């Protein structure tokens, strides 16, 4: 197929105004905030060695925190602040999306601006500062008419570095609920849609390049005392910002926001829910790629209205229970706990997406392994891989405790690559997901949890507190409950991992609905 006639390109382009607009707004706001904080700090610190050391040290430490972690840390921080402000001042703000992204990115922009401003100001010839004094300038006049103009080239280099960093790092704000060009990258990686990944990366790079060049234009304009260049550069940035605001203002706000975590099944289910809502004439949009630590809080605080979670995940991770209950008991207890937070457990979809130990069928048959207990004697010579969170999850502790499992090596992997790795023999066992379509594709087998160490993971639909009594929403989603069995979900997930045009979450959701609707 011709690369450019792939319908995923037009799908990608159709998201561009939304993703790019949000990306520009969050980056420019963060950069502006960063400059507003960094420039006065740098000026204040330039002749104070202690403050200078402390500031640069702090900014360097911030820089060593990976961007994804920094962004993720701001969410709980703001959530706590929001609840404090509600308790003390009686008003609440959304700790979701824009605000934490702007704060984290602003913090991230500080190091190059601080360092270059301080370096630039300290690099000004002391004889010129004395000359400024000598001709009768106040310290302030000396700063603004002599020191800052002379330091400007070095300062602008820092600002340009910061701009490129912020625009690049802003792609990581997707998991905390800020729509950005990162939506392409996260969705693309999860659904093996390389067109999306490529598109997202290229768009972010292009945006960084454009902003960098506009800043360069301002810089040469100031240096050459050309008002025209400064005006053109500034106008360019304002135009960029304005252009991204127009579509955002023109679009009516969606009344229902469907959340999705960062993996393909979630993208498909969110698309399915959004489609059902639209079919019921309820306007809906999805907020995808949310971190699993963020999404439940986002539901409780009403930033999203509905999403699909898994009973075991909530039980163990959200509510920190280490004991394992039978399926029905766990569900009913969960319902009670959720009700305390005013979250409605609307019902189960009908399948489980549990963690499971998975290995190639052939190898398992060779060794006579059917259950996890059968695996134990071989584990010492085997290597195991899992996603980034599994080894720190209570389920893994539970499995280790119940079976006394100890592998030779443990590796963390991107979930999409895990299945191929176990199929090719690069690792011996993986912690897979029972609903994953790749299990069938690679002819893998799920080992039986004979000691019931892994909790049940029913897919459940959760509604935000403010939607508890929303009959329209409830009746729109009712047809989905209990209608998606594990085989159907696996087939859907396999389609979503297809890496072709039919693999887009919307296409798969449509296929899934057709299957559901055809059922008796």
């Amino acid at each position, binding site marked *: 197929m011709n690369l450019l006639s792939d319908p995923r390109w037009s799908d990608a382009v159709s998201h561009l105004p939304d993703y790019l607009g949000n990306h520009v707004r969050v980056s420019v706001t963060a950069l502006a905030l960063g400059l507003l904080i960094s420039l006065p700090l740098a000026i204040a610190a330039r002749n104070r060695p202690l403050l200078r050391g402390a500031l640069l040290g702090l900014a360097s430490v911030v820089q060593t925190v990976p961007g994804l972690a920094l962004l993720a840390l701001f969410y709980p921080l703001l959530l706590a602040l929001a609840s404090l402000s509600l308790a003390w001042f009686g008003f609440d703000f959304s700790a979701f999306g824009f605000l934490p992204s702007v704060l984290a990115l602003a913090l991230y922009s500080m190091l190059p601006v601080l360092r270059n401003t301080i370096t630039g100001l300290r690099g000004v010839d002391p*004889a010129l500062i*004395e*000359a400024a*004094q*000598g*001709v*009768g*300038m106040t310290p302030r*006049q000396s700063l603004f008419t*002599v020191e800052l103009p002379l330091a400007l080239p070095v300062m602008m280099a820092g600002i340009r570095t910061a701009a490129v960093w912020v625009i690049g790092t802003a792609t990581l704000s997707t998991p905390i609920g800020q729509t950005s060009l990162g939506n392409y990258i996260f969705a693309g990686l999860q659904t093996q849609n390389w067109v999306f990944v490529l598109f997202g990366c290229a768009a972010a790079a292009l945006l960084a390049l454009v902003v960098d060049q506009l800043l360069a234009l301002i810089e040469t304009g100031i240096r050459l005392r050309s008002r025209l260049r400064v005006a053109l550069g500034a106008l360019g940035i304002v135009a960029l910002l304005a252009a991204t605001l127009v579509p955002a203002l023109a679009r009516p706000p969606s009344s229902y926001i469907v959340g999705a975590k960062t993996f393909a099944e979630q993208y498909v289910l969110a698309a399915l829910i959004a489609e059902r809502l639209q079919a019921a004439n309820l306007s809906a949009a999805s907020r995808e790629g949310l971190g699993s630590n963020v999404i439940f809080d986002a539901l409780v605080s009403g930033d999203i209205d509905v999403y699909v979670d898994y009973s075991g995940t909530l039980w163990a991770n959200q509510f920190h229970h280490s004991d394992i209950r039978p399926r029905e008991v766990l569900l009913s207890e969960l319902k009670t706990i959720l009700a305390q937070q005013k979250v409605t457990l609307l019902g189960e979809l009908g399948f489980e997406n549990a963690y499971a130990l998975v290995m190639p069928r052939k190898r398992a048959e060779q060794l006579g392994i059917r259950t996890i207990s059968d695996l134990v004697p071989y584990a010492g010579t085997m290597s195991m891989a899992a996603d980034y969170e599994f080894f720190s999850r209570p389920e893994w502790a539970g499995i280790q405790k119940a079976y006394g499992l100890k592998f030779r090596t443990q590796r963390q992997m991107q979930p999409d690559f895990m299945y191929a790795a176990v199929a090719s023999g690069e690792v011996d066992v993986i912690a897979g997901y029972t609903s994953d379509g790749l299990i069938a594709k690679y002819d893998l087998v799920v080992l039986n949890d004979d000691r019931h160490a892994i909790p049940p993971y029913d897919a459940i639909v959760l509604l935000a507190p403010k939607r508890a009594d929303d009959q329209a929403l409830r009746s729109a989603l009712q047809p989905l409950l209990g209608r998606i069995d594990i085989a159907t979900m696996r087939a859907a997930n396999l389609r979503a991992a297809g890496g072709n045009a039919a693999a887009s979450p919307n296409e798969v959701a449509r296929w899934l609905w057709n299957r559901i609707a055809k059922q008796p």
Partner: protein
Amino acid sequence: MSAPPVIAFAHVGKSFDGGRVKAVDDVSLEVHAGEFLTIVGGSGSGKTTLLRLANRLIDADQGRISIEGEDVRAVDPVQLRRRIGYVFQNGGLFPHMSVAGNIGITPKLLGTPAAEIAARVDELLDLVRLDRAQHRDRLPQELSGGQRQRVGVARALAAKPRIVLMDEPFGALDPLTRDALSQDYRALHDRLGLTTIMITHDMAEALLLADRIAVMHAGKLLAQGTAAELSGSGDAYVGQLLRTPRRQAERLNALLPANPSRDGKDGAA
């Protein structure tokens, strides 16, 4: 002299590094209206420090400095500097401002209207003998060393000060340019009725240019007076300083023919 001095140092002291280095040690010196005083001394003699104390680029530890009768400590240092012209070593021109911008800076700080500043800049360019049209919009790095110092002098004179302080203004110039510039400045000093203190390490320049010379060594003022008065000083260092230019002049006289031929008529080669 009956008129009060324009600049007066009385038992002034200044030390650096927590008192370990005495840059200026108990110096008393008076400069009267219209006078041209040069301060001579080797590097580290404290001459630049003394100059910087006068317009409060630094503040004295001891003693009293007065400018036109006022104790400088009682005056806002910024206002003080705006009414004293200061010519820096190597010019001290702002590299990001044009010649006109540099010259007009002090009037601009004083809030003079732009048109008036422009007229004043042209007037000053004439005064320091730089072509208006050719130099006005140039940047300092496009000028020669001599031109830069001419701009430095023009900048110091821009706000019509009665006092000008000059810190080795012509030290880095070639001898011809240096001679031309110092002669030009001396003429300006007389014409505008300025009171000038100029620092130099060149005794010959000091003797030829100034009304009075002050000699500094290791923070102390060793002697002050006219050339003739200095020659009567019993101080060994002062004597040594005076001997050098005299000996050079004598040797030059011996080496060069008394009336060098200009037309080459009786030139052999």
